[in-house]
């Protein structure tokens, strides 16, 4: 609160200062708004109790939408207790008279929603109002099976984010990961971005590692030992098909999709070294990206598709390197610490997140030019960082709870939140587009 008050004061000073120069003031005001008053204040109303299959979907819907909007880092969601009306009693068509009261509380937007049913399906109607003008900015009805109710609410959250920020939200995204099943099996699962609905993708009771969503979100590439060798598989969620893409003797591991979805970079060890290769998305002839006897693993493409970041021990210890996709321009970017691994290029291209060993395994950020090293975690051993598609969040695994669990945090390291808590080890997350 002190920080907020302090920033508001600073903003007020700039506004005051800018008065004689409206044009320049606007520029500075906008920059400061981005920086200071970046959160959008929103109130949630409606979601009257509605029982379906023994569950109050009204209450559930309100809690999901609240969590989604808060997680986005874009919204300040009003505490229902501070609203000048009882949120649950607000019905469709009764929103306009509420707006002046919200306006006086400096609430910028109101979302009002109702849940009903049609047959066995749940129906969610959401309306978004600009409090100041009274305009309805968004009105949509979502219909789907009750078991997909969480996704239905996530869709409303993402539509609100899209409407008010112009950016795609992440509430409807999912996270693929590896989890231990029984004593030795490691299977790939997929869950909602908030940890709900964990669903198996493999069930072969061997080792399954390194899931990677294709850019269209329809397939996941992964490595499986199901046939006795670490082979590269692709599973298609539309057709249910499961194909072996590469089964050379040795590693066919740590895949990365090119941003256009046409290529996979992967590590293979059939040639004598443990090197990176480029392979068409359907499999087939590969092109070497690295050579020699050193280990090259964990590639990740830059968003423009021109470069790769990867992990190699070619300098004697595992470090982070960049490489152009034609195999040229190899350069090392980490020089602090003797163990840096698991790099992932940010969706905006400006940062690389990786595992650093600075007082144990931690999550670090660095700029692609090697500047700006920053440590984000300090509790427990932390591994396997990956970005949310909007670049605002990082998922990772951490042993801070005793097990290896999945966590998410804001990209600045704040708000570290546990996602899995099932008594099993969960790791190697990959966030869907």
């Amino acid at each position, binding site marked *: 609160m002190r920080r907020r008050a302090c920033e508001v004061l600073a903003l007020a000073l700039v506004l005051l200062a800018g008065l*004689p120069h409206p044009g320049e003031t606007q520029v500075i005001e906008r920059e400061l708004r981005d920086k200071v008053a970046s959160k959008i204040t929103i109130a949630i109303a409606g979601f009257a109790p509605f029982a379906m299959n023994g569950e109050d979907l009204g209450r559930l819907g309100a809690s999901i939408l609240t969590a989604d909007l808060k997680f986005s880092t874009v919204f300040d969601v009003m505490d229902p207790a501070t609203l000048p009306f009882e949120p649950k009693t607000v019905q469709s068509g009764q929103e306009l008279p509420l707006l002046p009261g919200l306006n006086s509380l400096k609430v910028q937007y109101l979302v009002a929603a109702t849940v009903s049913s049609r047959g066995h399906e749940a129906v969610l109607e959401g309306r978004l109002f600009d409090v100041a003008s009274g305009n309805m900015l968004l009105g949509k009805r979502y219909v789907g099976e009750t078991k997909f109710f969480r996704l239905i609410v996530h869709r409303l959250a993402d539509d609100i984010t899209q409407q008010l920020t112009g950016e795609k939200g992440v509430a409807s995204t999912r996270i693929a990961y590896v989890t231990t099943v029984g004593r030795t099996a490691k299977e790939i699962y997929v869950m909602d971005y908030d940890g709900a609905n964990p669903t198996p993708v493999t*069930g072969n009771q061997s080792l399954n590692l390194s899931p990677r969503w294709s850019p269209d979100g329809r397939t996941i590439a992964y490595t499986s030992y199901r046939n006795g060798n670490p082979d590269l598989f692709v599973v298609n969620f539309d057709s249910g098909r499961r194909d072996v893409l590469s089964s050379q003797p040795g590693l066919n591991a740590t895949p990365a999709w090119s941003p256009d979805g046409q290529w996979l970079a992967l590590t293979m060890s059939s040639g004598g070294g443990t090197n990176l290769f480029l392979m068409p998305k359907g499999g087939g002839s590969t092109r070497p990206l690295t050579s020699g006897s050193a280990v090259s693993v964990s590639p990740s493409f830059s968003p423009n598709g021109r470069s790769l970041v990867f992990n190699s*021990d070619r300098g004697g210890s595992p470090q982070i390197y960049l490489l152009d996709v034609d195999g040229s321009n190899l350069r090392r970017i980490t020089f602090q610490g003797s163990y840096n691994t698991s790099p992932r290029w940010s969706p905006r291209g400006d940062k690389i997140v990786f595992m650093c060993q600075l007082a144990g395994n931690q999550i670090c950020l660095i700029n692609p030019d090697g500047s700006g090293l920053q440590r984000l975690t300090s509790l427990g051993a932390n591994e396997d960082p990956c970005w949310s598609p909007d670049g605002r969040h990082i998922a990772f695994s951490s042993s801070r709870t005793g097990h290896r669990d999945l966590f998410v945090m804001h990209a600045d390291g704040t708000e570290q939140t546990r996602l899995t808590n099932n008594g099993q080890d969960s790791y190697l997350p990959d966030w869907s587009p």
Partner: protein
Amino acid sequence: MRQLSTLPAVWMVLLVIASLTLVGCPKPPSIGQPGESAVTPGSGPAGSAATGPSGPSTGTEPSVSRPSVPAETPLGSAGGPGAGMGLGPGGSGGAGASSQGAGTSPLKDIYFDYDRFAILEDQKATLNQDAAWLKANPAVKVTIEGHCDERGATEYNLGLGERRARAVKEYLTAAGIAADRMTTISYGKERPLVLGHDENAWKWNRRVHFTLVAR
């Protein structure tokens, strides 16, 4: 920034004050102090953790599908509140292991230093015994498994385990064992022999293990 030079002095002064105020704002709370992760007591090498075979599996893969997108209908646009009522029906809802134990062999495990794949001097006697047994049993083929301890990254350790397996294969090849009798596989840190979070466990997990290939 060029525009700034045209501003009156008073503006500049206020801007500087504002900037200083911003810089002086307290940072968000930091994320806490480093802590220790829980440690469970390790068992000795005799208390082997890896038991199940990990060869070709018998399990069946689950069928996968995407939760389909809920049907979405715009709720009246022009109107305002209430305009969405009485809309036509929306679309119908969418669906909207290490083989340790399995191929027990007389071949003994070879151990390594942390993040290293070089054959240690004190391991060469064991490896020479392994080579002698392989020479005495020329019909036997083996799989050389490379393993790592739990420190370090899962994916990097796949590469490190591969290098350990390959280093042993090269040593045995130089000792006269035919290369086509030996295949390598890396399990990274995914198949620890001993559970535990200290050197007492780690030293047993940084290993190459041999399994005999059934013929």
